[in-house]
C-alpha cells in the first residue's frame, strides 16, 4: 500500500509545526485531543492567550502534582493553571467570545475535511455511537481562522481529505488550513493547495492518499 511508503510526523512534530504558525498576541482556542499539545510547542518569546470554552481566558500550564484544583480545568478536562492576565467567566460569555469573532484562531481535530473547507468532526454514521457535538460548531462559525490538525489518512488507509465529507458536517466552508503528518494544505476557492510536504514525502505519494485534488 502506498500509505506505508510515506513518512509520518509524530504527534509532537505535528504540534510543533502548527505552533510555528501561531503569532504573538493571538487569542487561540485549542480543541480537545491532538490540538491541546500545540501550546507546549509555541516558540519562546511569543505570548499566546488560550481560551478554553469552559470559562477561562489565559490558560496556563499544568499544575505540579498535588496542586491540582478539580474546579480549574480546561475543555479537555485536564487540570490547568491561570496564566498572567487570565479571567474566569460563565458559558454564555465564553461562547460570545467564540461566536462573536473575538478569538483569532482555533485549532481543531477532524474526521474529514472537504476541499470546500467543510469540516466533519462531531459525528460518525454509526447509530449506536451517541453523537457529542460540544463547542465545535460554535467555534467554526465565529473564529476567522480555523486550522485543522489530523492524521492524513484513517487507520485503514482511507482518506480523510475529500472532495465532499461523508460524515455529518460541523460547519460549511470553514477550514482555512489543514496540517497533517504528511503535508500542510490551504483551503482555497479552487480546492486544496499545497503549502509544504512534511520531510521525506513526495507530492505524488501524498496525492495517492488524498481523496481530492492537490493544487500546487
Amino acid at each position, binding site marked *: 500500500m502506498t500509505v506505508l511508503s510515506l513518512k509520518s510526523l509524530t504527534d509532537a512534530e505535528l504540534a510543533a509545526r502548527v505552533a510555528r504558525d501561531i503569532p504573538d498576541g493571538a487569542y487561540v482556542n485549542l480543541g480537545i485531543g491532538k490540538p491541546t499539545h500545540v501550546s507546549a510547542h509555541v516558540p519562546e518569546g511569543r505570548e499566546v492567550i488560550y481560551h*478554553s*470554552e*469552559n*470559562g*477561562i481566558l489565559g490558560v496556563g500550564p499544568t499544575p505540579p502534582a498535588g496542586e491540582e*484544583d*478539580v*474546579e*480549574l*480545568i*480546561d*475543555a479537555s*478536562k485536564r487540570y490547568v493553571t*491561570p496564566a498572567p492576565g487570565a479571567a*474566569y*467567566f*460563565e*458559558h*454564555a460569555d*465564553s*461562547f460570545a467570545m*467564540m*461566536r462573536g469573532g473575538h478569538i483569532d484562531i482555533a485549532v481543531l481535530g477532524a474526521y474529514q475535511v472537504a476541499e470546500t473547507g467543510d469540516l466533519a468532526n462531531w*459525528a460518525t454514521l454509526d447509530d*449506536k*455511537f*451517541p*453523537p*457529542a*457535538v*460540544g*463547542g*465545535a*460548531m*460554535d467555534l467554526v*462559525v*465565529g473564529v476567522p481562522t480555523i486550522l485543522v490538525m489530523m492524521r492524513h489518512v484513517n487507520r485503514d488507509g482511507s482518506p480523510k481529505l475529500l472532495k465532499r465529507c461523508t460524515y*455529518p*458536517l*460541523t*460547519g*460549511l466552508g470553514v477550514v482555512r488550513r489543514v496540517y497533517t503528518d504528511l503535508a500542510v494544505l490551504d483551503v482555497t476557492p479552487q480546492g486544496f493547495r499545497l503549502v509544504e510536504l512534511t520531510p521525506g514525502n513526495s507530492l505524488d505519494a501524498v496525492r495517492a492518499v488524498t481523496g481530492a485534488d492537490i493544487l500546487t
Partner: protein
Amino acid sequence: MDKSVADLAEAVAPITDGASVMIGGFGSSGIPFGLIDALLEQGATGLTVISNNAGAGETGIAKLLKEGRVARVICSYPRSPGSIWFEKRYEAGEIALEVVPQGTLAERIRAAGAGLGGFLTPTAYGTLLAEGKETRVIDGKGYVLEAPLHADFALLRAERGDPWGNLSFHATARNFNPVMAMASRHAVAEVRELSRAPLDPERVVTPGIFVQSVVEYGVRP
C-alpha cells in the same frame, strides 16, 4: 431575607416526577454532587436533565441514569470518557437524547432567563442539528432560529452564598451555573460556604433574584 435551607434534602424536596432539571457543571467542575445525591435519595423520576455532559463513572448524573430516574437528556456532549451509564441507557433506547451545540445550549438557557422568544445563531447552520429548524440568510451569512430553554428546577454549585441568594464561584466551576439560575422557575444552590454576612456586591456573580434556595455543602469534590 433568608433563602438558606437546613439541608440538602429540604433543598430538593420540591422536585416532582417528570420535572425538567438543569444541572450545572462542565466535566468535573461546578457540579452540584450534594444536591444530585439528595435528589437520588428523594426519589423523583421521569426527569428531563439539561446539562452540558451526561455524567461519567458512577457519580452525579451518571448515578441518576444508572438508577433509571432520567427520561430525557438535553446536552451538548453526552459521550465522555467513562460515560458508561449514559451509553447503556442510550443504546437500550431507554432515554431520549437532544444534542445541542454547547454555545447554543448556553444561549438558549440565557434567552429563557432573559425573557427572549428566541434568537438567530450562525451555529449549526447547514448541519444535521439545524434540520427542521427555521433558517435565514442575513448579509450572506446563514442563521438558525433557536428557542429559549426553560426548566422547572436548576441544581447549582457555587463557592460562596449568602442568605439573599447571592452566589460567587471558584475558577472554571462557574460554567453553566449562572445561566441556569436565570432560566429555571426554582433554582437551588449548594455552596461550599454559606456566609451569614452579605457578599461584597462587586463580587456577586449570580444576584440573589435568580436563586430560590441556598444550602451549605462544604465538600469540595
